[in-house]
């Protein structure tokens, strides 16, 4: 039962929002309370999985591999927890950041439906069901992206929708083909059957693995399929950008890690995929960070950074050892926190100045020290300065890469790190350190105290979380290593799901 609760909580919250249509007070309250309950449930799930191992729920009492199975292993539980945490933080931020006219058209319900889709994707043990959760997530995100209906948003949304629909089509087609080859869509059952099918029809299975890589790669925004992300993420309100940047691409990464560790985890398949994944990882990192360096829009720069960070995650997957996957999981959590903190700061900067354009900003270091620190800490955490979370995350992946002997990709990763630091310093210099250009001197807008509180609390909490992640890197690494061991030791997952029926 605990496995389905993280999906049900946002669902029920969204339903309350629908029933109380037009009553934004109830909707706002439900959004925050529901998200808070979600955090508690997610933590309980994480503790349960830690204590008792992989949790399985046969939905409708149809045993695997016939019915839909919900599975929570440590990796899923970690992702569900960070999703719930971000869900709560952005729900609080959105109380101020989302205008009244977006609330009346159902922003809070859509937001909760988005969380339903994301959480469902993390918990499902069924490939077709994963597609369904993806669609719930994408449909909510399509609407959220275009809620304001302004020209720039529609333009961004067109690219976003077309690319994501294309990826869904490829995903669905690959599920169909894989079902044709193996006769099952249950992931644990697939793991068994793909490895035996690979003996006879290796090229077919490899082609399927590549199709899945393209489908999930588009959603994760890896090179060369990332163009939709920087084209659309800077257009909606900050709260929406933040939750998109924090979760949506990470679902793609999660799906990639899941299919490669569970289904295509045989040497003949992975050796083929590894070269392509490594290449994609390297190019994603480099192109993403160069794109970021060239930008002058606060959120556009950060959007390109999302792409660059995805490269690191794919690198961790491509190295494919327990150590590198542990690093990847740690990195996932770190990058969700650090990037979201930066986006939230960009929202506050926008509220104060009315612009995201770095050329028109400046002077925050002198007149708003607290805000500057809130930017500075996640920024250098992202760049990988010790002792913050980013350092440990990069260190773990790089160390794993050196042990595995992937020197080129490690070199690329380090090279990109320098440019990450450079682009963070660019924002820091333009928006914070220097004096505001005389042409754009204008008094800062004042934010009413009641609103300021709701904007600051999530920003500060996430900022603190990046620091705490650095301090408690040890225990957190133990957790992510345990999760990575579960991922690589597929027998545990398979027996947990198929257990009695084999």
């Amino acid at each position, binding site marked *: *039962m605990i496995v*389905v609760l993280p999906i*049900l909580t946002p*669902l*029920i919250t969204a*339903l*309350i*929002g*629908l*029933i*109380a*249509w*037009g009553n934004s007070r109830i909707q706002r309250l439900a959004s925050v309370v529901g998200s808070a309950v979600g955090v508690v449930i997610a933590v309980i799930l994480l503790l349960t999985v830690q204590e008792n191992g992989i949790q399985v*729920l*046969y*939905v*409708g*009492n149809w045993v695997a591999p016939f019915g839909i199975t919900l599975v929570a292993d440590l990796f899923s539980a970690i992702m569900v927890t960070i999703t719930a945490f971000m869900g709560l933080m952005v729900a609080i931020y959105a109380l101020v950041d989302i205008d009244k006219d977006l609330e009346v058209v*159902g922003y809070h319900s859509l937001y909760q439906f988005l969380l339903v889709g994301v959480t469902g994707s993390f918990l499902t043990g069924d490939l077709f069901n994963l597609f369904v959760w993806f669609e719930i997530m994408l449909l909510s995100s399509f609407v959220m992206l275009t809620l304001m209906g302004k020209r720039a948003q529609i333009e961004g949304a067109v690219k976003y929708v077309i690319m994501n629909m294309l990826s869904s089509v490829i995903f669905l087609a690959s599920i169909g083909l894989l079902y044709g080859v193996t006769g099952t869509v249950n992931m644990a059952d697939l793991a068994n059957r793909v490895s035996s099918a690979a003996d006879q029809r290796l090229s077919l299975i490899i082609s399927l693995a590549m199709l899945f890589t393209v489908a999930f790669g588009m959603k994760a925004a890896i090179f060369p399929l990332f163009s939709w992300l920087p084209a659309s993420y800077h257009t909606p309100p900050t709260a929406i950008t933040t939750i998109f940047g924090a979760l949506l691409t990470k679902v793609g990464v999660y799906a990639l890690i899941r299919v490669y560790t569970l289904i295509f985890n045989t040497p003949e398949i992975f050796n083929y995929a590894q070269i392509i994944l490594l290449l994609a990882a390297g190019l994603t990192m480099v192109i993403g960070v160069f794109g970021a360096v060239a930008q002058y829009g606060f959120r556009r720069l950060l959007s390109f950074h999302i792409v660059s960070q995805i490269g690191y995650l794919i690198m961790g997957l491509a190295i494919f050892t327990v150590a590198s996957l542990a690093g990847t999981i740690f990195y996932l959590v770190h990058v969700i926190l650090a990037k979201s903190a930066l986006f939230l700061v960009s929202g506050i900067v926008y509220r104060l100045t009315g612009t995201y354009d770095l050329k028109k900003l400046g002077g925050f270091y002198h007149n708003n020290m607290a805000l500057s620190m809130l930017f500075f800490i996640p920024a250098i955490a992202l760049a990988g300065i010790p002792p913050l979370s980013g350092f440990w995350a990069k260190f773990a992946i790089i160390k794993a890469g050196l042990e595995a002997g992937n020197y080129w990709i490690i070199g690329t990763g380090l090279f990109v790190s320098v440019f990450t630091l450079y682009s963070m310093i660019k924002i820091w210099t333009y928006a914070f350190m220097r004096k505001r250009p005389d042409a754009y001197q204008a008094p800062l807008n004042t934010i009413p105290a009641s609103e300021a509180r709701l904007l600051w609390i999530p920003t500060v909490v996430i900022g603190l979380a990046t620091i705490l992640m650095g301090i408690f890197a040890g225990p957190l690494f133990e957790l992510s290593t345990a999760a990575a061991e579960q991922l690589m030791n597929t027998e545990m997952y398979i027996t947990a799901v198929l257990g009695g029926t084999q």
Partner: protein
Amino acid sequence: MISSLILRTATRYLFPIILLFALFALFRGHNEPGGGFVGGLLAASAFILYIFAFGIKRAKASLGVQPISLIGIGLSCAAGSALIAPLVTGQPFMTALWGETDIPSIGKLSTPLLFDIGVMFVVIGVILLIIFTLAEEDEKLNFLNQSD
């Protein structure tokens, strides 16, 4: 919107009959043609007839709630039907439970029936949301034409 006396009088009688028929289709649905989706379409069509006869304002008033709330209620029924099993008998989420007694023209009470009722509400909500929006636009246009 001007409609004939015949249509208005007929609607008064047809409206409850169509709604009853919608319920009949819903309960019949589990083993024979029918079900929540068809029932929902029928019930929505009753309201569409009402719009033709009495105009959008009175149709909205006779519905009483917002169409979107109906979607919410319907989804809640569906979610509730899934939750009955774990809460009452401790079986996994979404397990179907069936009552013992056969009620005439309704059949056995069950959680799938509750799910079907939810589907019906969602369908009514979705169709009426579309129809109300279109009808309101239409009425605005009529108003503009008349004022010319």
